[in-house]
Structure formats: structure tokens, C-alpha cells
């Protein structure tokens, strides 16, 4: 009998914990939304449109292919740019780790690149290239490449030397050494690099599209600015936020699966 009571109590506790977690997750957004809605009662719609109008526009974008394709185009540009920067960064990272000369040549160059503002890369791309997609991919790669490269270098240099030696003692092939040791060892830092660069890339892509594209979320934002349509500007911004949140969630799910071997402290 006492077992049943204790089970019920623990079930009630877990439900209470979930509700509390959901409440605190939603609380800041509810607060901002409420403040915005109150402001919309006192200001004209081009400054603070009603949230009902904003969500109607969000729904409109999601359900109209000609508009939703702009969201997809931006999402693909972000992922394509990140993938390109990551692949190039991985190659450069391996070169820097294995060659002193590559380290001496590439590290200062990439550090210099890191100091160039994203907007400058946009201007350079517009002057240098004609193709819209190539321009955007170029801007994405150039702005995220240094961070990816340095993160790969850090991950490779941080590999546990004892484990490297142990794996080497079995005389593995290069491929086996990569799959059994290098890849799992660097994966946590690679995922973190993707998470960090995803936020940066979503900001850069909008600037690139705003100036040098005829489609995508950035281009649509430019249209809303010219029409003084604040509801539209918010709705398009939310599309980008949704995409970033969705991709962050996918990365987190992958992280949970890939790093299930990690121990968890009960206290934490």
C-alpha cells in the first residue's frame, strides 16, 4: 500500500517538475509577448503591430510556397556555407596540426581574416563575383572558416596522448585510426563549433542576402523595410529564429545520442 502511495507521490513530483520546467521556459517569452501586445495598443502598427497580425504573417509564410521557398533558400545557404567552411576548416586544421610550416603560414592568415567584418566580405564578394549563390557561399565560408579551423586544431591537439598511443599499439590502418580514435575524440568540439557557428552564420546570411541577393529571408526583410511593414519584418525574422532553434535541437539530439557514454554527476 505504501509502495503505491510512494509511486503516486513520485509521479506527482515528476509532473510538478515538468510543469515548473515548462513554466520557466515559457515565462520570459510570454512576458515579452505581453509587453509587446500592450505596446501595440498604444502605438501605430508600423512601430508595434499586434502579435495576432504577426502570427498571421508567420502562418502565411509557412503555408505559401513562394514565400516558404525563401526560408528554405536561406536555410540551405546557412547549411551549405557551414558545411563548406567546416570541410575546408577540417582540412586546414589537419594541415596546421601536422605541419609546422602550415601552422606558421595559416594561423596568422586566419587570425587576420577573423578581424575582417562580415560586411566587408559582403562588399568584397559583390565586387569580385557575379553569381548570387556563389557570393553568399563565399561570404559564409570566409566568415566562419577561421572559427571552424581553430576549433578543429584545438580538438586535434587536445586528443588524449595516452589513448592515441594505446590505439597505435595495435598498429591500425590510417582509416581505422581515424574512425576508432580521431573522429570520436574530436566530435564533441566539432558539434560545439557547429552550434556556435550556426548562430553567427544565421546573422551573416541575412546581411549577405540583404545586400547581394534577390531572394531569401534577408531579401524579404529588405522588402518589409521599404514597405515599413513591421509585422512582416518580425514574421520573417521569426522564420530564421525557428530554423536556428530547430537545427540547434537536432544537434542537441545528435549530441545526446553520440555522447551517451558520458557519465553524469547525480548532483549536477
Amino acid at each position: 500500500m505504501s509502495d503505491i502511495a510512494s509511486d503516486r507521490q513520485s509521479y506527482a513530483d515528476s509532473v510538478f517538475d515538468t510543469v515548473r520546467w515548462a513554466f520557466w521556459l515559457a515565462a520570459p517569452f510570454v512576458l515579452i509577448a505581453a509587453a509587446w501586445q500592450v505596446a501595440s495598443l498604444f502605438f501605430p502598427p508600423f512601430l508595434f503591430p499586434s502579435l495576432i497580425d504577426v502570427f498571421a504573417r508567420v502562418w502565411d509564410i509557412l503555408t505559401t510556397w513562394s514565400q516558404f521557398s525563401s526560408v528554405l533558400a536561406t536555410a540551405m545557404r546557412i547549411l551549405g556555407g557551414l558545411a563548406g567552411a567546416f570541410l575546408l576548416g577540417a582540412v586546414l586544421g589537419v594541415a596546421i596540426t601536422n605541419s609546422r610550416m602550415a601552422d606558421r603560414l595559416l594561423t596568422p592568415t586566419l587570425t587576420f581574416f577573423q578581424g575582417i567584418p562580415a560586411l566587408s566580405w559582403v562588399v568584397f564578394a559583390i565586387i569580385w563575383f557575379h553569381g548570387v549563390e556563389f557570393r553568399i557561399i563565399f561570404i559564409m565560408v570566409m566568415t566562419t572558416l577561421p572559427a571552424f579551423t581553430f576549433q578543429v586544431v584545438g580538438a586535434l591537439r587536445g586528443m588524449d596522448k595516452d589513448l592515441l598511443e594505446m590505439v597505435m599499439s595495435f598498429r591500425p590502418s590510417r582509416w581505422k585510426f581515424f574512425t576508432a580514435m580521431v573522429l570520436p575524440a574530436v566530435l564533441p568540439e566539432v558539434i560545439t563549433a557547429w552550434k556556435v557557428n550556426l548562430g553567427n552564420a544565421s546573422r551573416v546570411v541575412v546581411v549577405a542576402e540583404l545586400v547581394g541577393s534577390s531572394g531569401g529571408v534577408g531579401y524579404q526583410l529588405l522588402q518589409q523595410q521599404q514597405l515599413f511593414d513591421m509585422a512582416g519584418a518580425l514574421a520573417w525574422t521569426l522564420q530564421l529564429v525557428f530554423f536556428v532553434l530547430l537545427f540547434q535541437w537536432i544537434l542537441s539530439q545528435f549530441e545526446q545520442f553520440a555522447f551517451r557514454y558520458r557519465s553524469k554527476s547525480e548532483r549536477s
Partner: protein
Amino acid sequence: MNLAKVDNMLSLDDMRFSAPEGAEVEIAFQNVTKRFGDLVAVDDLSLDIHKGALVALLGKTGCGKSTMFNMISGLMAPTDGRVEVMGHSPFREFDWYRGKMAIVFQSDRLLPWRSAVKNVELGLETLGLSAAERTERALYWLNALGLKGHENDYPHALSGGMRQRVSISRAFATDAPLLLCDEPFSALDEITSRRLRTEFARLVRENNKTAVFITHSIDEAFDIGDRIVVLKRPAEIALDLRMSADVSDVDRERIRDTIHDTLDA
């Protein structure tokens, strides 16, 4: 150092190691010197280890025994002289030893992202065995080392002793004829350490392996070695003793004191 023979007691000369007639040399150090800058870690060392022997290399910290270990395993090249293992150079012909040499390290060195069974399979993956065969062999050795029921546990969920058992399983699973052990039980408590080294010595003998066991513990060397090579700085042989069945407990106690004095000198 030359103790007189009293009654039935063996003298140090009686216990000095001499190679068995016709024994095949598995590991040979020929006038080997290893320098790190100005530091001489191994100085003109010559030593033969025969096939099927269980040799304990005993010495204090910093005497060069780990340098010897690294040269045998091919992780390091000698500065002068030759190191040969099974007639080949472990440093220059590194890949030749795939499946012929297995190492048990001081710490367990388990890959944290692999379960116990997958850690044991690591060495087998380099040998091109099928997945089913790898798993079967890995499970056999985990079972032999008393880890039934923990096959799918990740290293963080295992105790220090259990993790070291997994690393021993990993070494035995490859069925390599040569086992190298670098103070594998030094980080464990005395009871676990003694139990594991007894099991280890039994498995080495049952499976006809040649094993080189590096240790700084006299007790460990006595528990494991058929032959004990006592090293002084810089990796110079101070004593080379056999530990066969005719060596009585009294002789062992006496020789323990001699080794202690030698290491202390």
C-alpha cells in the same frame, strides 16, 4: 653480492639466470643506448629475453625501464645499438607487429566512447576478423576475466579493477604471442592488484605467451616473474635472477632483501 651457500640455501650465483639450452630469443637488446639530449636513459644495455618467458623488469622510478618498454613496443627508436623483437626492428617495421604484440598499460586506457566489449574488440578490428568473430572472442575474454554481465557497460560505469580487467582482456583477445605490461596494477589497491596479477600470470602461462612485465614493486616481480631483471640507473642490469620452483620461500626472502639493498644503493 656473492652470498655463501649455507646448508640447503641457494646462493645468489645459483639463482643467477642462464638461458635454457636451445631457447629461442624473442627480444634482443644489443648494446642499446638511448639519450634524451644530455640525459642517458639506457646505457649500452644488452639483454636477451627468450620465447615463453615471463620476465619482470624491476627498477625504481626513472631507471629507464619505461624507455626500454617503449623501444620494445616500437614507440621509440634507440640512439645507438639494436633492438630486435622476433628478429625484426619494432620501430622501423612498426606495422609488421600487427597482431603479434599486445600491450597492457599502467592506466587502463579504455576508449570512453566504447563499451567494454567494443574496447576489447579494438585490437581485433585491426586484424580483419568478422564482426561475429570479434564479438565472440571479446565476450570470451571478458568472461574469462570475470566481467560477465558488464559487457555493455561504458568505462565510467566500471571500477578501476574492472577497467584494468577489460584492458587485459583487450590484450589477450588479439592472441598476440608477445605481451608487454607497463606496471598495469600499480594504480589499484593491494588486494585487487594481487588477485589480478595472479590471474594474469596464470593466463600468460596457460596461453604460452612471452610476457615482459615492468614494475617498481618487488612483491609484484616475485608474484609474476619466472625471471627478474633488476635495473639500476641508467637502465643497467644489476641482477638477473631466475625464480623457478626450486627457489624456497627462505631463499625468496633473502633475495628480496638483496634486491632491496641493490635498488636502495
